[in-house]
């Protein structure tokens, strides 16, 4: 599809930008660079001119477009909800098509299926065993996310011996009176943090739901979207749609904020035309729901509160703060994860300053723009330190990875965890106490 065709699908949205500048206020890149070209408004002016044939993708345009984290903060703060993230994605695909995948980030996109680079990645990082990489599919976003030179000085979690698929059965039966759900894990959870998957599905199982974990699911597409890899994106949409197509479920649960946002965005018909996948992508996207939203919507927090009636001695409670993943916050989800944390008896919840500041990971952004990514990330340090919390919880494994790196670099006495990991810990603690009684 030509750029013109893909972009012209957004003609209406482009004309809805009234150039007010409100998007500057929340754009992490603008806040770090103070330069308009990086903010949504600048990108949209560029897109409009490209569409009108009055501008071209020169080096500066590529630079400006590569500075976007696809975080969606601009869309959220825009009075007219202009979908800048989607429009930037279209332009990135065009850049990749015209000028090659590598342009958007040094080595980032090139990693897919390039054994030589992969080798140097493993040596450079000294962290990945080749065995581990063999277990990550070619199409995984993890391969797109980290390039050799960013891995050298990044803190990584110890790699799990078994990935999620090895740890969890395909079906976790619940009570017959409760509906069945499907779980979409995404790469970061599947391969780096399988315990988050385990925590999420076990909590759901405790609540009575039957949970399916389809084997054929793959990467959500966010890194492909971010690096402008249109072909890979299509492949992933097809695979994921097929993996979930025949399951009789109303909801597909995610515990990764970025996957949730990407699935919604990617599976909207404008990205991959309906005919191209042979499946109904939109209905798949409509089923996708974040775990925190689900728990709140279904009234599970009350059920959980009942299950957790055992009181924890105040002295044993842990001070926990929360970091807002962009891909929850910018979709209006801020209350639900906090409500969950407040339900957990062992959690002494404190609100940190700057909870809503972006962590700077942004799909492939931390790999393609390591310095800017760190500048954005470092804005979190002050709030984290001042919170006095021992744990910072979040609803996105990407944020957890990045927060771990920030905490380590700043030398803060705390750890990053997923909210669901805490929820499962609370449940298990409560069940153990009940058995003792």
């Amino acid at each position, binding site marked *: 599809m030509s750029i013109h065709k893909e972009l012209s699908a957004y003609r209406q949205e482009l*004309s*809805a930008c*009234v*150039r*007010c*500048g*409100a998007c*500057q*206020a929340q754009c992490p890149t603008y806040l770090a660079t*103070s*330069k*308009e*070209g990086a903010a949504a*408004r*600048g990108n949209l*002016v*560029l897109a409009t*001119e490209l569409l009108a044939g*009055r*501008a071209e993708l*020169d*080096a*500066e*345009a590529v630079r*400006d477009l590569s500075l976007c984290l696809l975080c969606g903060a601009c869309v959220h*703060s825009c*009075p*007219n909800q202009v979908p800048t993230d989607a429009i930037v994605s279209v332009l990135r695909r065009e850049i990749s098509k015209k000028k090659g995948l590598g342009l958007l980030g040094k080595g980032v996109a090139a990693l897919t299926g390039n054994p030589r680079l992969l080798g140097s990645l493993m040596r450079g990082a000294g962290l990945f065993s080749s065995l581990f990489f063999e277990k990550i599919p070619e199409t995984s976003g993890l391969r797109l996310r980290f390039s050799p030179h960013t891995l050298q000085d990044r803190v990584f979690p110890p790699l799990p011996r078994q990935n999620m698929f090895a740890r969890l059965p395909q079906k976790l039966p619940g009570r017959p009176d409760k509906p069945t759900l499907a779980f979409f894990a995404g790469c970061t959870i599947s391969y780096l943090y399988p315990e988050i998957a385990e925590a999420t599905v076990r909590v759901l199982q405790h609540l009575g739901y039957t949970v399916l974990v389809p084997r054929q699911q793959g990467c959500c597409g966010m890194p492909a979207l971010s690096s402008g890899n249109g072909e890979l994106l299509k492949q992933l949409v097809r695979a994921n749609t097929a993996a979930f197509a025949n399951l009789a479920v109303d909801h597909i649960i995610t515990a990764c904020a970025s996957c949730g946002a990407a699935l919604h965005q990617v599976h909207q018909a404008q990205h991959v035309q309906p005919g191209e996948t042979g499946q109904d992508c939109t209905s798949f996207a409509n089923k996708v729901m974040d775990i925190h939203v689900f728990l709140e919507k279904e009234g599970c927090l009350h059920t959980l509160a009942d299950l957790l009636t055992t009181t924890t001695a105040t002295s044993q409670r842990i001070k926990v703060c929360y970091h807002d993943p962009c891909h929850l916050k910018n979709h209006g989800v801020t209350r639900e994860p906090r409500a969950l944390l407040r339900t957990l008896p062992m959690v002494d919840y404190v609100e940190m300053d700057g909870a809503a500041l972006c962590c700077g990971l942004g799909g492939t952004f931390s790999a393609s723009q390591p310095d800017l990514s760190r500048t954005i990330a470092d804005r979190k340090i002050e709030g984290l330190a001042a919170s006095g919390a021992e744990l910072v919880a979040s609803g996105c494994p990407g944020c957890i990875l990045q927060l771990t790196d920030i905490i380590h670099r700043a030398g803060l006495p705390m750890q990053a965890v997923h909210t669901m990991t805490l929820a499962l810990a609370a449940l298990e603690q409560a069940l153990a106490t009940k058995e003792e009684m």
Partner: protein
Amino acid sequence: MTKMSMLNERHLQALRDIVGTEHVASSRTDRLTHSFDATQQHCMPDVVVHPKSTEEIAAIVQLAAKHRLPLLPRGAGSGFSGGALPVQGGIVLVLTRMNRILEIDTSNLIAVVEPGVVTARLQEAVERLGLFYPPDPASKEFSTLGGNVAECAGGPRCVKYGVTRDYVLGLTVVTPTGEIIRTGGRTIKNVVGYDLTRLFVGSEGTLGIVTEIILRLLPKPAAKRTMLATFTQIDGAAEAVSAIIRGKIIPTTLEFMDAGAIGCVRDLPGIDLPADCQALLIIEVDGEPAQLEPQLERIIELMQPLGLLATTIAQDAAAAEALWRVRRSVSPSLRKLGPNKFNEDIVVPRAKVPEMIRALEALSQRLALPIINFGHAGDGNIHVNLMVDLQEPGMEAKVQTALTEIFRTTVSLGGSVSGEHGIGLAKQPYIGLELDQPTLAVMQAIKAALDPLGIMNPGKIFPAESRLALAQGETV
């Protein structure tokens, strides 16, 4: 006619020497992304520079003066009158990198800031210390204090607290000849020489570049209450504004919306307004907590005889935010009524608001044009929005007729054609309706004295110059 600006590679190199290569941008993309403001008009600059200090700016202005290059300070580019449009090309000086709060002096209640500080960031910083910077343009989350000073920005809180002008104690300015001057100072009282501070406030970047600002702060009010009052008709709401002030209560905020504005938001999710509500007021009072309840009661009493339908008093911050949502949802939803918006910010003496609104309604009916009115009724500042489709034949002329009539009525009621957005480019044709020739001549004499070469934001405020400029400007 040729364009005034003749920027060449030598000039670019000189600029790079001053601010560093990475802060001079002249590619088409970089110029494009700095070619517009919130008026949605475009004019291409020749080069975009991001300076970091007063000294760098002075050096740039000297360079521009030497080579007769037009020059234009730019903040966030959120202006509504075209102030930041480089109509004659030249150098755009973006001040967003100069975004440090240099000092907050809690003993003297003063803040010293660089011009690129975003309004809301200063407000947050001083509020953490129990202090208060009142001017609150609706754009406060992104507009810069330099831009606020240059436009003398106002906002909802101005009924009680006044506008940006009332908080500027002193300025550092780079003049159009490249001199660094300091006006005013750190004291409330200061009568040494002319009041240059006031001259520069509201000067729209035409007299010099503000590079440091000394601002007055207040103690933060202990509490605030928000109320929504609905009325059966606009006259009642408009009368209520005067009645409240006559009743010796100055609310922090007195915002109104007319029937058209209400129609735009009525069906939005989460907004619940009585069916026969034709006008509404959002009223805020602040001060000692114990005083606020009686004040609100008194306000309700004053409004009762004026066709008051209902009042809702917010019990917490979230409820107050929900009330504000009604007002904030208006601007974005206007597009429904027509693709082209003419947004005027007239101001009339408070007591004349009912008369002005009646005149606007009559005009709207006579010309069959949707005119939506809302805004800061408490200080007589009405945002008049004409929503039209300029593709319709004859519409352009119709809009011109309407605008001229609106401004004439405004001035005849003792009002002003712009309350807070400035003249810039957009209001030039109407400046003569308000200022007579001798007054305009004094202003132009000041401009000529400070900017003898006419390089500082040329083509703004004064009409003759602008028409020339528009003909010359390279548009996208």
